């Protein structure tokens, strides 16, 4: 199983949006996917209509009050399941966060899910938050989301330093890609910074796909659905996440075996 943490140093750059839509695409492309909401704010829950926000979830699992299998929600997409954030009272927050930082609680949880999924996509809280550290200590891959604006990109080195420190402490977590989000094609400052980041990345970390800033995201969150389910015929921007998934699959060892992936003739 691969554990992919979707993370960023700065808040509001689109982690939750990317985690949700990428998980849908990975699942539609055939990977048994579990989307885990590891942001104590429960942002995945806030993004989706349905019974998710009141559901038991990660908080209950980590407190030992529920088993992950009991709290995982099925979705309309066959291969996609969601582990919601669960219920955390305001008073619990601080104590909770420090209890998670050492990573052992997440380690136990993830181990229990080992055989049921090919990939866990974990939405994290931004920066060096304790629960994010706990996730990163157990993840094997990180997708870093940056917004195509200067402040977000200037925080990149800080995040990478943290990742390097984890690796030096024998945590096998590695960066698999940097996704540039909210590119504004008509603003030269936005495109210039996107280009600058892409130019600095080696090919194994750059993603050819970038995500434009688009009002469709607002519409999808207003409806409480992932972009791919906003219309019966997916919107072109939803398809971009299929491309991101296709770019990431080989980097995470999710590619099919050669035999499974063989070309099929169009005609008999």
């Amino acid at each position, binding site marked *: 199983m691969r554990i992919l943490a979707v993370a960023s140093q700065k808040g509001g750059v689109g982690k939750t949006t990317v985690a949700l839509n990428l998980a849908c695409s990975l699942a539609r492309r055939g990977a048994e996917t579990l989307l885990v909401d590891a942001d104590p704010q429960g942002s995945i829950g806030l993004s989706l209509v349905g019974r998710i926000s009141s559901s038991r979830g990660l908080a209950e699992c980590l407190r030992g009050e529920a088993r992950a299998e009991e709290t995982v929600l099925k979705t309309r997409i066959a291969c996609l399941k969601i582990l919601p954030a669960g219920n955390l009272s305001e008073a619990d927050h601080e104590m909770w966060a420090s209890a998670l930082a050492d990573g052992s609680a997440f380690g136990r949880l993830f*181990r229990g899910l*080992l055989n049921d999924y090919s990939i866990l996509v974990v939405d994290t809280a931004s920066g060096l938050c304790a629960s994010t550290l706990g996730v990163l200590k157990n993840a094997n891959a990180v997708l870093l989301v940056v917004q195509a604006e*200067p402040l977000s990109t*200037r925080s990149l080195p800080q995040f990478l330093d943290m990742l390097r420190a984890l690796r030096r402490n024998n945590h096998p977590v590695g960066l698999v890609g940097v996704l540039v989000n909210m590119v504004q094609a008509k603003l030269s400052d936005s495109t210039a910074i996107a280009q600058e980041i892409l130019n*600095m990345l080696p090919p194994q970390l750059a993603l050819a796909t970038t995500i434009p800033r688009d009002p469709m995201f607002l519409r999808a969150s207003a409806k409480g659905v992932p972009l791919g389910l906003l219309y019966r015929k997916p919107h072109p921007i939803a398809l971009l996440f299929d491309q991101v998934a296709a770019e990431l699959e*080989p*980097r995470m060892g999710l*590619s099919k*075996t050669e035999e499974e992936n063989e070309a099929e003739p169009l005609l008999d």
Partner: protein
Amino acid sequence: MKPNLSWIDPDAFSIVLSEVSTDPEPSPTPPTFSTLDIGFWPENRPGEAARQHEAVPAAGETQCRPAFVPRKGKLQDRFENLIEWILLQLPCEQVFLADREGLILAHRAAEPELVAASSWFLSSWAKVHKYLNPEGLAAHSMQLHGDRLLHLFQGAAPWGQMSLGVVSEKPLDRNLTKCIQDALQNTIKEE
């Protein structure tokens, strides 16, 4: 010169990047082994393994000598320590540790095709095994061509499933199997 909007020093940045990116993942290839002879036995969860790594053999079973002593520190050193210990337990033609996708993490004389096939097989078999024995990790022995046997062990590491493979002419009895499985869990558990 173009303005530097991100304020990032590209040289320093590329050094950090090289230190934080994952190694490329090989795609698994289809299996090449011929016949199959499957066995499985109860296993110990990581916590228990620590206490039990000196199992008591039944009469006539192989003693594990020396007993496995897990090494602390870097994963690579811990892997090497496990392989060295296995080489003391039985005559081996190949030994390998691989991740779920068949990426070799440490080995002695391992054939990459066999490693990839083993990881592919083990991850499929682990799903079946979970129904048969939800508490245990999978282990199997299967016949390769000739008199060689491939002994495969599933390991549950904090970062995902792992496989340990040992190619040997010697069949494993229950005790040696248990010792190796415990040693594997002891090697890959969190410190």
